[in-house]
C-alpha cells in the first residue's frame, strides 16, 4: 500500500477552483514527481497534505491512517516534512540553529538517535553545508537557503518528504548533487514527492510522475508514459516552455 494517499481533494478560493477532485499516491522508497503549468495547484496540493490548507472535500491518508483533520504539527510528528517554494527559513537564527530547532523538536516524539546538536550537524553534512553552519541564514543566497530548508526537514526524520521546486536557485552542479542526495534518501526508505519545473531533473529522477493542470490530475505514470500522453502535451503547449520532450 502506498505511504500517502490523497483522494478527491477539492480546494476553492472564492470563485477559483485551485484543486478539482485531485488524487495522488506516493510510495515509500521512490521519488514521485508532480508537474504542471504555473498556477495548476501544485503548491496548494502540498498545503493540503501538510495541513496548511483546509479542503472542501477529500481525504489524506498517511500509512493507513486518515490525517485529514489533524493539525499541521501533528502531521509533522507523523512523519510529513516539506520545503517551501518561496523559502521559509528562520531569519533570526543561524544555519545550524535552523536545523537544531527541528532536531530538538523531533526528540519530543522520538527519543532515539544522537543528541540534537550532533544530529543537526549530521544533517548539514548530508546536504553539504557544514562550512556555513554559523552564518546568519537571513544573509544566504537562495541556493544555500534551499539546502538549509532541506537539512531542516531531514532533522525531523521524515517518512515523507515534500519538496516544492527544490532545484530552483541551484546551479548546475548543485542540482546534480541534489538529485544524488534524493536518490540516496529514497534508498533509505524515504518517500519523496517533488514539484519541479526543470524537466530533465524530473524525468531523470522520478519513478512516477503525476501531471496537474488547472487543478485536475490529468495523467499519472512512469516518465515515458507521461511524456507520450497527448493530454499532457496539450496541457503544456504554450503554457510552459515545451520542455516535455
Amino acid at each position, binding site marked *: 500500500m502506498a505511504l500517502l494517499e490523497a483522494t478527491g481533494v477539492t480546494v476553492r478560493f472564492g470563485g477559483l477552483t485551485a484543486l478539482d477532485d485531485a488524487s495522488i499516491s506516493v510510495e515509500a522508497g521512490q521519488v514521485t514527481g508532480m508537474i504542471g503549468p504555473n498556477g495548476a495547484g501544485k503548491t496548494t496540493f502540498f498545503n493540503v497534505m501538510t495541513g496548511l490548507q483546509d479542503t472542501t472535500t477529500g481525504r489524506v491518508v498517511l500509512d493507513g491512517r486518515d490525517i485529514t483533520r489533524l493539525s499541521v*504539527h501533528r502531521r509533522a510528528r507523523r512523519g510529513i516534512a516539506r520545503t517551501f517554494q518561496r523559502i521559509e527559513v*528562520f531569519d*533570526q537564527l543561524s544555519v545550524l540553529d535552523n536545523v537544531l530547532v527541528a532536531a530538538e523538536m*523531533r526528540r519530543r516524539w522520538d527519543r532515539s538517535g544522537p543528541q540534537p546538536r550532533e544530529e543537526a550537524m549530521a544533517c548539514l553534512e548530508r546536504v553539504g553545508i557544514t562550512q556555513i553552519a554559523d552564518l546568519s541564514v537571513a544573509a544566504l543566497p537562495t541556493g544555500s537557503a534551499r*539546502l538549509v530548508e532541506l537539512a531542516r526537514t531531514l532533522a525531523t526524520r521524515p517518512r515523507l518528504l515534500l519538496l516544492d521546486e527544490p532545484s530552483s536557485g541551484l546551479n548546475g552542479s548543485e542540482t546534480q548533487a541534489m538529485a544524488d542526495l534524493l536518490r540516496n534518501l529514497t534508498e533509505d526508505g524515504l518517500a519523496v514527492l517533488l514539484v519541479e519545473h526543470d524537466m530533465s531533473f524530473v524525468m531523470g529522477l522520478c519513478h512516477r510522475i503525476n501531471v496537474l493542470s488547472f487543478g485536475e490530475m490529468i495523467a499519472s505514470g512512469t516518465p515515458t508514459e507521461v511524456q507520450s500522453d497527448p493530454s499532457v502535451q496539450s496541457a503544456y503547449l504554450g503554457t510552459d516552455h515545451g520542455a516535455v520532450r
Partner: protein
Amino acid sequence: MKLSPANYAAIALTVAGAIALSALNWSGRPVSVATVGSMLVVGVTLGSIYAVSASGLVVVYTTTGVFNFAQGAMGMYWAFVYWELRFNRNWPAPIAIGLVVLVMAPLGGVVLDRLVMRRLRGTPLVLQLMVTVGLMLGFMGLAATQWKGDRGRNAQPFFGRTGGFELLGVNVTWHRFTTICVAVLLAVLLRLLLHRSRIGVAMRAVVDSRSLTSLTGANPEIISGLAWALGSSLAAVAGILIAPESGLVVELLTLVVVDAFAAAAVGRLRSFPLTFLGAMVLGIGQQFIRSFLDFPGGFSNADRALPTILLFVVVLALPQAKLHIRGTAAAASTRIRRITPLSDAALGGLALIVVIVSWSGGLVPFVDEWTGTGVNRGVTMMITAIIMLSLVPLTGWAGQVNFAPLAFAGFGAVMFLKVAGDSGQAWGLVMAALLTAPVGALMALPAVRLQGLYLALASMAFARGFELLFFTQSSVIDSGAGERIASLHFAGWQLDGRGRGYLIFLTIVFAAGVVGLIALKRSRYGRRWMAIHDSEAAAATLGISLVETKVIVFGISAAIAGFGGALFGIQQATLNPSQFTLLLGLPIVLLLVVGGVAYPAAALFGGVNTILFIVIKERLGWSWLSALEILGPGLMAVAMVVNTRGAVTDMGRAFSPLLPWRHDARDQFRLEHATEREDEVGELGLGRPFTRDHVNDLDRQLGIVDLIPASRPTESRGGL
C-alpha cells in the same frame, strides 16, 4: 459576510449573556416611553459620534493598510483647537468649524502622511503599531502642553443647551439632532465616495496593489494623502461633536474615541454599514446600562467597559488567522550569526551593578541627591526596566505584540499584596510571578487565533478590561482600607522600597534577569520562539505546536511582569487602580521598542529614558513641557520611522568593536564597510556577484536551457 455556525453560537451566547446580566443587575427604574426614548436619543447620539470616528479609521485602513491608533487622539486635538478658536477667541462657529474641519485637520493629515506614514510602507507591523500609538501619545502630550490643566474648559453645544424639539415626549436638543444628521450624512457620502466615484475605487485598490493602481492612472501618493486628510477631518468632526457632551479633558476625549475601535472591529475594519451598526450597538448599549442597570460597586464602570468587552468578543469571533506563508527575501551579505554569550551578559550585568552602587553611593559627581528622590528615581527606572524585560522574549523574540504589560504587573502587585503584603517576605515575589503566569497564558488564547493587528487590539482590550473591571474591585484593591505593603524582607535584610538597598537589590535582580533571558534565548525554547516569529507555517511543519509555544512564552512574560509589578508594589507601599491603566502602560511598550525590542539592553535604555523625561522636566524647570512623560515617548516612537532597528542596536554595533575580545565585531565592521556597494546585485535575488552559473540558472528559469552547454563545475560556498 458569511457567518459560520460557530459565529451564530457566539452571537447567541453573547446576547444570552447580556440578557442575563441585565436581568441580574436591573435597577428597577421605570420603563416608560419617556425613559426609553431619552435613552435612545442619547444612545443614538453617542453611536453617531462613534460611527464618524470609526469611519475615519476604516477610510485610512482600507486605503493605506495602516490602522491609526491615533485616530482618537487626533479627534481630541482638533476638538481642543476648535475650542480655542470658538470659545477662547470667540470666533464665529461656522468659521471655526470650517477652519478646523476643512483646512487644519486635512492639512495635518497630509503632513502626517508625508512625514511619517509614507515611510511605514512595507515595514514590519510592530513598527507600524508603535508609530501610530506613539502618535497617539504625541497628540495627547501636545494637547496637554498647549492647554494646561483641567481648568473647566467647556464647549457649548451647538444652538445652546436648551431648545430643540419634542419627539415622543422626549426633548431632542439641536446639538444632538445635528450630531445624528451629520453622522448619517457622512455615512452616505463616504459610501458613495468609496463605491461610486472613480477616486474612491482607486482608493480601495491602493492597499491591494500599489502598482496596479498606478496602472489605472491614479497616483497612489496622492490617494494616500487624501485618505489621511479625510481620516483626520472625520476625527475632527467626531471630536468637535463629542466635546460638549463629555467635556474637554485630554485623556477622556482620547479614550472616548478609542472606544470606537470596537465599532470598526465589528466592520472588520473594512465595511461601513457594519461599522455603523457596531457604533449604534455601542452607543445604545452604553446608554442602556446607564439608564436601566445598576452594577454593584466594583463593576460600576460597566458602561465604560462595554466597548472593550465588545472589542474583545468581536476580535475573538474573527475567523482563525491562516498560517501565513510569506517567503523570505534573500539579502546579500555574509554575517556570522552571534547570540550574546552568557559571559558577556554576566559582564554587562556586573558593570551595571557597579555603576548603580557607586552612583547611589554618591561616588559620581553628577548626582547630588543620592538620598530621597534621586534613589527613588533609580528604583522607578529599574522596576520599569524589569517590567520591560517581560516583553523582550514575548515581542522581541516570539513576535507577539502585547499592550498589556502593566495589567500583568498590576496583577502581580495585587498578588504580592495578598500573599506577602504584611510581611514583605521575598518569597512573595516568586509567588506573585507564579500566580501571574496563568493570566498570561490566558492572554495566549487569543494569540493562538490572532496575529498582528488583531492581537494588538485584543491586548489593548485586555488591558482596558483589567483597568475598568478588575483593579476597581474592592476585593482586589481596597484603596479605602489603606492596606500597606511592608518593606522587603530578604535574606535577613529589610529593604525600604525607596532606599538605596532596594535599588541595589533591584539592579541585581535586573542583571540576573538579563542573564536568565539570554540563557533562555540560547536554549531550545528561545530557538522555538524565534522560529514561530519568523515563520509560523514552517515552524508548524516541523512539529512545533503553536498553542503550546505561545502559552509558554506568554506565561513567562507575564511572570516577569508580575514580578516587576510586585516590586513596584513594594516601592509604592499602597496600591490604587489608577496605577495600572492602559494609557500608563503604553509608554512602557513604546520606549522598549524604541530601544530595540529584541535586546534586553533595550529595557535598560527604556528605563533610563522613562526617568530622563521626569528629570529633564524638573532640572530645567521647563514648566511649558508639562506633558513630557507622554510627549517624549510618543515622539521617540514616531521617530522610529527613521531608525527602525532600535537605538541599542546601533549603540551595540558601534561599541562592541572597541571591546578587546570582540574580534568578530571588528571583522564584521570591516566586512560591512567593504561590501556596502555590492547591494545592487541583491535586487536580482542573488546573493553574490553574477557568475556564469547564475547566468545559466536564469537561462534555465527563462526556458532557454537547451541553448547552453551543460554547466561546468564551479566554486560554490553553499554547494552540496
